[in-house]
């Protein structure tokens, strides 16, 4: 297996204007994110709203270019200046499925036109060939050929998400960025879509970057999980390790906040107090320190970097120093 995506110190800074004379505020949506994605695996990116996971999705799909850092996708380097002449090829390699299937499809286009549009722009196929491909893709995602001539409003949420997935697959991409693909769907429909995604991954050898806030969904789909907090990755670990032995205090809190699926598992939760700090004014030191029960003076002044502990990469001084309860000393 080789890395298909390598990100190094990726940052995205937005400038927010405050008026004619005031200096614009800097909002660091993503800060120094470094990670790799292997070919054919599913990397899940987990975090609460405002942690920068959707910004990361926009950088990965080249909707935006990063303000700092370097991103290598399939051997092509993308820097702040963009991808240059390879941009067009890269765009067909990386495709995205958005969260809300009701907003992601143009209500005035028929399903056929929606599916054929990427082909029209990126290939020189004739109308007949395009139609053939679109119909084959409809079958691939579990829709019927007669759906070709219908409008999006005639479909349910789950079917619309199938159309959005079909559109993303039209250019035969290698990487699919899934931005909360099932969070707008009911449980029974969610299961259908997750199964479809698993089937497609096996058949087409796709690499998934699965963005979600739902840890129980992530547990089902991911190979590796990256937990983000306020723009930075705080823990990257293989799925089994992360769920069995979460190291970062934030990961632990997230896991214990997820409702149990059996009434007898109702347990004492780790109660996180407070909310996500404003990204305009992040706290000094570790950005999690105001909510962290293990924070000390070092956490409040210095910023921890991702360090390897066993199979996981964790950015936490408490883990580094081995003063986190429930962790064996030799793990450090």
């Amino acid at each position, binding site marked *: 297996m080789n890395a298909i995506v390598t990100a190094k110190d990726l940052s995205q800074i937005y400038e927010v204007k405050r008026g004619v004379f005031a200096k614009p505020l800097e909002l660091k949506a993503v800060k120094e994110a470094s990670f790799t994605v292997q070919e054919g695996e599913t990397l899940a990116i987990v975090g*609460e709203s405002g942690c920068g996971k959707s910004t990361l999705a926009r950088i990965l799909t080249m909707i935006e270019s990063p303000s700092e850092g370097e991103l290598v996708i399939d051997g092509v380097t993308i820097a702040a200046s963009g991808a240059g002449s390879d941009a067009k090829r890269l765009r067909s390699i990386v495709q995205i499925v958005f969260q809300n299937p009701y907003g992601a499809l143009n209500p005035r286009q028929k399903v056929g036109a929606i599916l054929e549009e990427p082909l029209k722009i990126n290939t020189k196929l004739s109308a007949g060939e395009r139609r053939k491909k679109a119909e084959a893709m409809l079958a691939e995602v579990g829709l019927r050929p007669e759906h070709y001539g219908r409008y999006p409003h005639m479909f349910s949420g789950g079917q619309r998400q199938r159309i959005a997935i079909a559109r993303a697959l039209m250019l035969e991409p290698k990487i699919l960025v899934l931005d909360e693909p099932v969070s707008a769907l009911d449980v029974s*429909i969610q299961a259908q879509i997750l199964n479809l995604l698993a089937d497609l991954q096996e058949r087409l050898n796709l690499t998934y970057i699965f963005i979600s806030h739902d840890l129980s969904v992530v547990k089902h789909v991911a190979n590796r999980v990256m937990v983000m907090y306020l723009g930075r990755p705080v823990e990257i670990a293989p799925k089994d390790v992360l769920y069995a032995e979460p190291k970062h205090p934030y990961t632990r809190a997230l896991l214990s906040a997820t409702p149990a699926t059996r009434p007898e598992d109702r347990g004492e939760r780790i109660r996180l107090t407070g*909310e996500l700090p404003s990204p305009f004014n992040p706290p000094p030191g570790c950005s999690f320190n105001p909510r962290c029960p293990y924070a000390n003076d070092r956490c409040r002044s210095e910023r921890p970097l991702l360090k390897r502990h066993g199979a996981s990469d964790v950015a936490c001084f408490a883990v580094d120093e081995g003063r986190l309860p429930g962790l064996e000393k030799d793990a450090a």
Partner: protein
Amino acid sequence: MPLLSIRNLSVTFATASGPFKAVDGVDLAVEPGEVLGIVGESGSGKSVAMLGLMGLLPPSATVTADEIAFEGRDMRALGARQRRKIIGKDVAMIFQEPMSSLNPCFTVGHQIKESLKVHLGLDRSARKTRAVELLSQVGIPEPERRLSAFPHQLSGGMSQRVMIAMAMACNPKLLIADEPTTALDVTIQAQILDLLVDLQKSQGMAMILITHDMGVVAETAQRVVVQYAGQQVERQKVSTLFDHPHHPYTAALLSAIPERATGKRLPTIPGVVPGQGDRPNGCLFNPRCPRADDRCRTIVPPRQPASLGEALCHYPLEAVGEAA
């Protein structure tokens, strides 16, 4: 005597293509101090039934029932004025989207004090003291300063706390929480659920929790009603529901939760919830049910006894063994 007792509640909407029964024959009995969960997918009529009880439905809706009694008083016989004396005071409701449920034009303090003025007739200074007390009760830091904040200045979790404070203002006996945590992040969801359960215990009030999330039910409720296409398909205690569902729909819903799945693929329920035009004959679940036969497709299923979860099914799953 139950606090709230509803028998055979139905809600019908007059739509352009004819009447549509969104809620069909719902029975509920809520004892003082208990937490009842209502679970179902979107379109199952769980919110509409409660909005019907609160009188918050548009004029196109017709609400019928054999009985709607709150503390033994028949709500159907009350006039609008008297009904409003109970609704908002003894029965309060919090809604799904805290951001859009608060009025953006008024301060938080104004909106909390409104019900104190209308229902309790407190004077200005008493209202202020009570509002500060309520905000600190729901865990909002610096409550006095927050009274003059507008809703857009608050985060989602804070807005939901304000909504809870408003609902708690008159010490209600019954709180209806309609998807109170759906729009919130997991850590905030855990905070809000803890807050609701703490308040429910300390005030001794009853709570109806409407949700689509089986996990939320497992965490908080004592009894569960599972609703499908407007009908209650199963009513059980939460302690037994998760291990021994009796209705095939409940069983399928539980096994579709990713966390409970064992294999690489999730067991799914084929098809979708029937809409207005495609309600099947017989059992409403029959097109999606693996156990359906001709009887299910033609005859409306009977209500099973309590030992079988009061399931609305011809062939309920047995208590032990068969519930796979």
